[in-house]
Each structure stands twice: as structure tokens, then as C-alpha cells.
């Protein structure tokens, strides 16, 4: 059974009387012991998903079921408490997410007392040290006494992870957990999350804009664009064999140290030509019934003015391993793709 089931989640923000649809009809499941990566650029709605799942934002429609706790029962205080105990968050900025006035031990004691049923005493102190050990902060006695400013960014993020683990959650939402950290320690933190996920059978949602770590640290990837999931599937399939033009664009934009100078120059020229064929203003999004990416899409066709359905991205896959790999793009529709795609000028 999945740890978290999201069905048809839609979130609107009110803006000067009008509404902005930040998340549109999102459905997915998080499985225990698995990592799902949610990838997209800023403004794609990734963070709204996290905020809605953590109940900081109310969805306009749709349902979030966390084990037995569903929306209908959330009105009860006890259920709300269970929800927050079961689902925990790791934020992006470890400099802002820890209180500079309190020690590390204080940060870890609070959730243990509030959610773990602990009382002050030697047992609580031992639990704090255990948590610090579980995130490899050693020696735990010393770290526990420190204030956040005495720790490096990586150490702070470990404290934030320990705090999330204090309630013994089943679901962990990590919203860009390493993007504020130095490159040299990013992998260590991601490895830590990976091990914790395995050891504790956590369902992990890894929200990021970095395709490479998304591929290496998750089994499934969802790619979001302007509030919609445009592609999803097994990580290797989505990255190595992207079906949606947006995912293809993302994958081609990532730096690749193996390319030679000549290849780089070629790629640059190609991108320049692609861009010149469109007016700058035109690149801004179109939100209507059609595909939201069509303003930027190099393969836009007439049919793109109507909303594409989820289509299996089996085209080009050598064997049946593309199971569950879907993309929301008319190009994958055999009948539509047969029509000439030459109309990219408008």
C-alpha cells in the first residue's frame, strides 16, 4: 500500500481578484522505501505541491490521503497531529530553517516531546543523541550543545534532517534539500537521505531542478511545467529517453563535461537558431485549453491548441521497459504526429 496518495490535486492562488492555477490536476503515489523526484523550473509549481502536501496551503480540489488520514477527517485535531507526525519536511535553506537562538539539542527535543511522547529526562537526551548519530553528526554530545551558527551548511542540513526524523515519519518531503549547499557536500547529504530512506522504509519526495541528481537518487521522475506534470516514468527512461519536448530541452541544457569544444559550439549555434525563430515575448506561457509549452516548443503543431492527454511514451523504446513512462504531448499520438509538424513558424 502506498504511503501517500494524491488524487487530482488542484491549487489556485488568488491574485488581484483573478486566480492563478499553480497546480492542475496532479495525481501520484509515494511508495515506502522509494524516492520520487519532482523536477521543474521555478514557477512550475513544485514548491506549491510541497506546501499543499504539508498543509500550509489549502487545495482548491482533489484529495490527499496519508495512510488512513484523508481530507475529510482532517478537521479533527488528533488527525491533524497524526498527519504532521507522519509527514515531515526538509527545507531548502538550512540557514533559515533553524532558530539561531536555540541549541541543536533544543531543535530535536521539541518534536520528540510534541510528537514522540517523550518527557524531559535522560531518555530524551539519549533519543537526541541517537538522532544525531543517525545523520552522522559526531561526536553527538558536542554537536547537541552547539548553536546553528557554529555549524557548516551541510551540518545544519543534517540537523534539519534529524529534526524531521524525530517524529518517526513515514513520508519525507525534501524541497531542494541541497541547492543551497556547497557542491562538495551535496552528494553526502543526498546519500544520507538515500540511506535513511532504505533503513527506515521512508517514502521520499525529492523536489529539485537538478536532473542529474534526480536521476541518480530516485526510481521515478515526474517533470512539471506550469502546474502540470508533462512527463513521468522510471528515472532512466525519462532522462535517457525523454519523450516530452520540455524534458528534452531540460536534459540538453544540463552541462555535460564529456562534450568537446566543437560539440559545445554546435549545440550553442543550434540553440541560438531555435531562439531566433521566436520573438522574446512569445516565449511567455500561454494558459488556455491547449498545451502550455507550445509557446516555447520547437515542434508546436496546430493540434497543440487543444489539451493533450497523457500518452504512453513507448515510441523509441527498445523493449517493454518503458512501462509507466507517459508524457502529455500530442507528438506521441500516432494520428496527430502523422500530420506535418512543419508549422513551427507561428
Amino acid at each position, binding site marked *: 500500500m502506498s504511503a501517500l496518495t494524491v488524487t487530482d490535486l488542484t491549487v489556485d492562488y488568488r491574485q488581484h481578484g483573478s486566480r492563478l492555477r499553480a497546480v492542475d490536476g496532479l495525481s501520484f503515489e509515494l511508495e515506502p522505501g522509494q524516492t520520487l523526484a519532482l523536477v521543474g*523550473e*521555478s514557477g512550475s509549481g513544485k514548491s506549491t505541491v510541497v506546501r499543499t502536501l504539508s498543509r500550509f496551503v489549502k487545495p482548491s480540489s482533489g484529495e490527499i490521503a496519508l495512510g488512513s488520514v484523508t481530507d475529510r477527517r482532517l478537521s479533527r485535531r488528533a488527525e491533524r497531529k497524526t498527519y504532521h507526525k507522519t509527514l515531515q519536511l526538509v527545507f531548502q535553506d538550512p540557514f533559515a530553517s533553524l532558530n539561531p537562538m536555540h541549541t541543536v539539542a533544543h531543535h530535536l527535543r521539541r518534536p520528540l516531546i510534541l510528537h514522540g511522547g517523550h518527557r524531559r529526562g535522560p531518555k530524551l537526551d539519549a533519543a537526541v543523541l541517537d538522532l544525531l548519530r543517525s545523520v552522522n553528526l559526531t561526536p553527538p554530545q558536542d554537536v547537541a550543545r552547539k548553536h546553528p551558527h557554529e555549524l*557548516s*551548511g*551541510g551540518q545544519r542540513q543534517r540537523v534539519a534532517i534529524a529534526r524531521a526524523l524525530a517524529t518517526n515519519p513515514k513520508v519525507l518531503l525534501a524541497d531542494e534539500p541541497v541547492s543551497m549547499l*556547497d*557542491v*562538495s*557536500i*551535496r*552528494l*553526502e547529504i543526498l*546519500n544520507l537521505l538515500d540511506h535513511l530512506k532504505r533503513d527506515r522504509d521512508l517514502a521520499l519526495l525529492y523536489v529539485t*531542478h*537538478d*536532473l*542529474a*541528481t534526480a*536521476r*541518480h537518487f530516485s526510481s521515478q521522475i515526474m517533470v512539471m511545467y506550469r502546474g502540470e506534470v508533462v512527463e513521468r516514468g522510471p528515472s*532512466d527512461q525519462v*532522462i*535517457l529517453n525523454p519523450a516530452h519536448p520540455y524534458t528534452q*530541452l*531540460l*536534459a540538453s*541544457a*544540463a*552541462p*555535460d*563535461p*564529456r*562534450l*568537446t*569544444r566543437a560539440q*559545445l559550439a554546435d549545440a*550553442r549555434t543550434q*540553440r*541560438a537558431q531555435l*531562439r531566433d525563430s521566436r520573438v*522574446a*515575448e512569445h516565449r511567455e506561457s500561454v494558459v488556455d485549453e491547449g498545451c502550455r509549452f507550445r509557446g516555447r516548443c520547437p515542434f508546436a503543431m496546430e493540434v497543440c491548441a487543444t489539451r493533450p492527454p497523457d500518452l504512453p511514451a513507448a515510441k523509441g523504446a527498445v523493449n517493454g521497459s518503458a512501462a509507466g513512462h507517459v508524457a502529455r504531448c500530442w507528438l506521441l499520438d500516432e494520428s496527430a504526429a502523422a500530420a506535418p509538424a512543419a508549422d513551427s513558424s507561428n
Partner: protein
Amino acid sequence: MITTTGIEALHGSAGLSTDIVLRASNVSVEYAGRRPTKAVRDVSLELRRGEVLGIVGESGCGKSTFAYALTRMLRPPARMTAGVVEYFDRDGESVDLATLEGDRLRDFRWNKIAMVFQSAMNALNPVTSVGSQMDDIFRTHRPGMDKAARRARCGELLEMVGIDARRLRSYPHELSGGMRQRVVIAMALALEPQIVVMDEPTTALDVLVQREILDEVERLRAELGFSVIFITHDLALLLEISDRLAVMYAGQVVEYAPAEQVATSPLHPYTRGLLRSFPDLRGERREMHGIPGSPPDLRTELAGCPFAPRCESVFDPCRDMTPPLQAPPRAWPVACHLHDPRYARTTDEAGR
């Protein structure tokens, strides 16, 4: 594998222009305090006309401080305690930046060296329009220009970075992050400087926007022929865009090489560690590790190699002798005992 192109590119015996536009010799910078922080320690670099020089390293390794020293923008408590920064104009005239004061310094900045700051997206004034902020540059630095000429030039600059000239009337909040970044780059280029220093210009941006801006910088550089000092912690990115790069650690340059060479055969274990910190998008899935530990406290005297405590190939001399930045035979400058011929036998065992 070490090819000879490395030496040529570094010593300028062939091909690339050897025309130096900026030379920093033995620059040291300290932040005053009870225990002064020696943020930059004896750094010497040369910037050639028209090249992109990348400076890479973790936070706190002195990249930005060094850039500020190059542009005479250090403010107390930071102070350049040693070294010379020389600028060479196109006509061959050289200027020692330390001697510039008052009007001459003001005249020099932006005209000759411009800087794009970290989080430049927030460098714009939120309460005046983009146009009037750009206009300020010309009113200050080009008092002879009349209003119409200034306006035309501002529009031209925006078009140059791919933004509609009508956006001159826009306020910064009406532009996306990427557009704001383009505006800041356009402003840096407004007076046609010889050198543009870019300190993490794309760190806060999305991959796609980042890519567009880097392409733009590359195109403008080819057109206008300025030199770029590009500072970032993103080595993968730097390998693509820079001609040569300097890897900094603990305030020192530890490897100084043509970018292709660093990509294929990095010499310093720190450079190798940085390279490994980026998972390959399309490569094999494998267990990956960054560089364990953290950089040393720059307030203390460093004995031996500053990287030794984190180094996987550490051996005897590393603990008490600081390796000098020197080029081993058939290679480029690197500060590591592993590549010192004196320890050749030991390194064969340790380096493989």
C-alpha cells in the same frame, strides 16, 4: 595522459593571444579582526584579452574576495595586504590599480572593468524603471551625451541582450529573474569595458535560463571582444564556458589549467573531488561521493598542504610542507606534492 597543448596554452608559445589585459601578482587579502582572516593568500593570475578565465572553488575559498581585490572594491575590514594588480589598455599603457584614487578610480571603474555581482537579480533598484537606471550610467560616465542619444543607447543595450527596448519603461518587479539578470549584464557592458567580472551570475536561475544567459555572454564576447572572469562553484558549467580555469582552495590557487585539460585529466585531488561531485546526467548509476570534511579555518596559520586533511592521496610531505604552485614537466601549474618530481616514486604508488 598529458598533451603538450597544455603548456602551449599556458605559456602562450602558440595559438591563443598572449595579449595580457589584467595581471595579478602575489595578491593577498586579509579581513581585519582579533584573528585576521587571510582570505586570499599570494595569488597570481593573468587574464588574456578576449578569454574567459574561470575561478572555481567551494564557498569560503576566497573566490569573491579575490575578484573584489581585482576590481578595487574591497572595503574595510578587508584590505589587500600584498601584491600588485596591473591593467593593460589596448594601446599598451599599463595602470597599477593600487595607485588609482578619487576621480581617476571612478573613471576607471565600469569604463575598463565592470562587475556583475552575485544575486545580481536583486542589484536593480526596485523603485525606478530599468530605463532610468541605465540612463544613470551614461549621465555619470558620459556627461557629453544628450538625452536622445542616451535613450537610444539604452534601448540598443537591451536589444543586445535579447530584451525588447520597450522594457525600458518596466520596473524590475515586472521582469522575470532571467530578464533582470540580462538587464544587469547589459548595464555591465554599457561602457564597453575590457573586462567583465561575473561573480556567480547564474546561480539563482533555472537551468534553461542559465543556459540562455551563458549563450548570450558567449555571443557578446565574440562580438565585442571583452575578457571575462567567471566565478562559480559549478565546475561542470565552468568547464564548458571557460578557456582556462583556476581552482582555488583555502585562499590559494591549487590548479591553473586550460579547461579541456581539467575536464579530462585533472591533477590536483581537490579538482578531482570537485569534478566527482557532479553526477553525470547520462552516465552509469554508481555510488557517488563528494569531498568529505570542510575547508580549513582561514584565521589560523596553515601548516603543510591545506587540503591534506580531506585528501584521499595524502602522503608524508603533505602534512608539514606547503606545496608551491608549480608546473611539473609537460603539464600546467598545480600545488600538490603528488606531482612534484622529487616525490615521483611515492606518487606513482599514491596517485594511481
